[in-house]
């Protein structure tokens, strides 16, 4: 199915859920509300029109610093006033980030029909929560644990939501934009 047809079909199935869509650089993207996420994903997985049997990737983005000047991290600016280069223009511009602070990003692929779809689920607040996809895909388990670990987004109905890459004693969520890149935390080890 073409990207446009894919978006249209999903829109016709879930007219209230689909909040927006675009196909920037040919990637079919649909922004959906988090309310009936599990049902929507079950349709994507099982419906003959989609057959998205592979949950390729599940991640999140913190949009809180989008378009703002970000601290340089390890590389200090030279102090020389630089006039930024003109952006390389684009024929079909990207509609812009979602209004919410976080977006959970899902990438689906259908082995049978060879099409891809990206799902953006905007979530708001400091303790955001979305439905877990672990009843549908076994692979969602670890991917959601990573998003919890890195962004602090909770997944409703996840069987084992604990940190995966960082250690249990770690404080904060490192991939949030308000987590400074050079903050150090003590490594927790056995007490001697």
């Amino acid at each position, binding site marked *: 199915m073409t990207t446009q047809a894919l978006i249209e079909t999903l829109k016709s199935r879930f007219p209230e859920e689909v909040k927006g869509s675009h196909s*920037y*650089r040919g*990637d079919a*993207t649909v922004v959906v509300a988090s309310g009936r996420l599990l049902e929507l994903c079950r349709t994507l997985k099982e419906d003959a029109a989609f057959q998205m*049997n*592979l*949950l*390729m*990737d599940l*991640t999140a*983005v913190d949009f809180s*610093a*989008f*378009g703002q*000047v*970000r601290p*340089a*991290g*390890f*590389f200090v*600016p*030279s102090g*020389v006033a*630089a006039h*930024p*280069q*003109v*952006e*390389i*223009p*684009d024929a079909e*511009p*990207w509609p*812009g*980030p979602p209004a919410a602070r976080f977006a959970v*990003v899902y*990438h689906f692929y259908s*082995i049978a029909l*060879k099409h*891809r779809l*990206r799902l953006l689920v905007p979530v708001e607040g400091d303790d955001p929560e979305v439905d877990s996809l672990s009843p549908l*895909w*076994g*692979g969602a*388990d*670890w*991917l959601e644990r990573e998003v919890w670990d*890195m962004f602090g987004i909770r997944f409703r109905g996840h069987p084992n939501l604990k*940190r*995966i*890459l*960082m*250690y249990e004693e770690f404080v904060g969520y*490192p*991939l949030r934009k308000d*987590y400074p*890149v050079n903050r150090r935390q003590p490594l927790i080890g056995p007490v001697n």
Partner: protein
Amino acid sequence: MAELETRDMLLNVGPAHPAMHGIIRIVTRLDGEVMVDVDVEIGYLHRGFEKMSETVDYNGVIPYTDRLNYVSPLINNMGYCMAVEKLLGISVPERCHYIRVILSEISRITDHLTCVGASAMELGAFTVFLYMIKAREFLWELVEMATGARLTVSYCRVGGVKGDLPAGFAEACAGALKETRKVLEESDALLTRNRIFVDRMSGTGRISSEDAISYGITGPFLRACGVDYDVRKDCPYSVYDRLAFDVPVGTQGDNFDRYLVRMEEMQQSIRIVEQALRDIPDGPIQTNPETGRPIPASEMVDEAKMGNIVAIAGRQAVADPTLDGSAKSQHANISAPEKRVFLPPKEDAYGNIEGLMQHFKLVMHGHGIRPPRGEVYFPVEGANGELGFYVLSDGSGRPYRVRVRPPCFAIMSALPKLLVGDMIADLTPTFGSVNMIGGELDR
């Protein structure tokens, strides 16, 4: 007779067990010799790749991608660069595509050689390991010849590659591939009908294709279950659609099928490299011998400072050896014709003001490549499966978010499924066939 009391035993494998291919901890609960429960703990090699990528410019991420899958870094380089190129809406010259394909297929062979060789060694077949590492050495010499480094190659650039292939690469490649073929033949003779090896490998670590898909497994691991999904065939990128190759699939989804699939994929990769070397468009146009005489870069800079442009026009600068292959005559082959993305040749940077400005605008802090606001996902076929980069730009000189979809993360999350019900001794071959790469798994 009274019922004997039986108790499960907890066995901690790792974090630094000799048969672990990286630092990882597997906690197994054993009933006798059978694993009844497995818990996998990862994260020991987490270095914050995604966070670090947000602090550097677009080309600055490339050295970090080398350290994802450090057995085949060129594929990571290529995946990241193609994602940013998609975001920018540019494409590289044809010769550059072929160079990338040749080098990533060579990397795929080195990755599979490491995986098969190490699994064979863990089952006692040390000879095969030595043979395969020897073949990998020949291939790494090729990589070193083209990139100047063996492991941390950082060869691709956004909009091109670092330099053209060196003279004599095709001959050296033919020689190395001949040696590799010989090693594959020898290893095949030593392993494929070896009773001990087959007994240990077949029937262990089995997973059905439904389960594999549910866990998001891709690459040789999924193909061993009988699903012929290969990014190079199903979503062709670069010039893969012009090259003929087969996608081997297995039937059982066990360790032995994964071994067979990897062995066949190496043969197919050799086929791809040979075709690509045959079809690659011609190299640089030779410079005019009268005017194109090379001079040291420092002299060129001095002449330019004095405004003596006539003396340096059309001449080739002898720059640092790390810049081999990026002379002006070769530049059109390795870089996209987009001045806002790729550095000019050194002859221009030293010899004229336009080149100097182009160089300045790309390297100074606060300038650099500035893709439009937007998001893209670009998948390539890594050695372990689909390696995808999700890059999001907010229009500034630094990526807003870089997410890598690591292929062995999905396989590792299915590890309990693969191990439960098998004997504790089957942990070694099953874990070996996963080909876990710590750098890619933990990022």
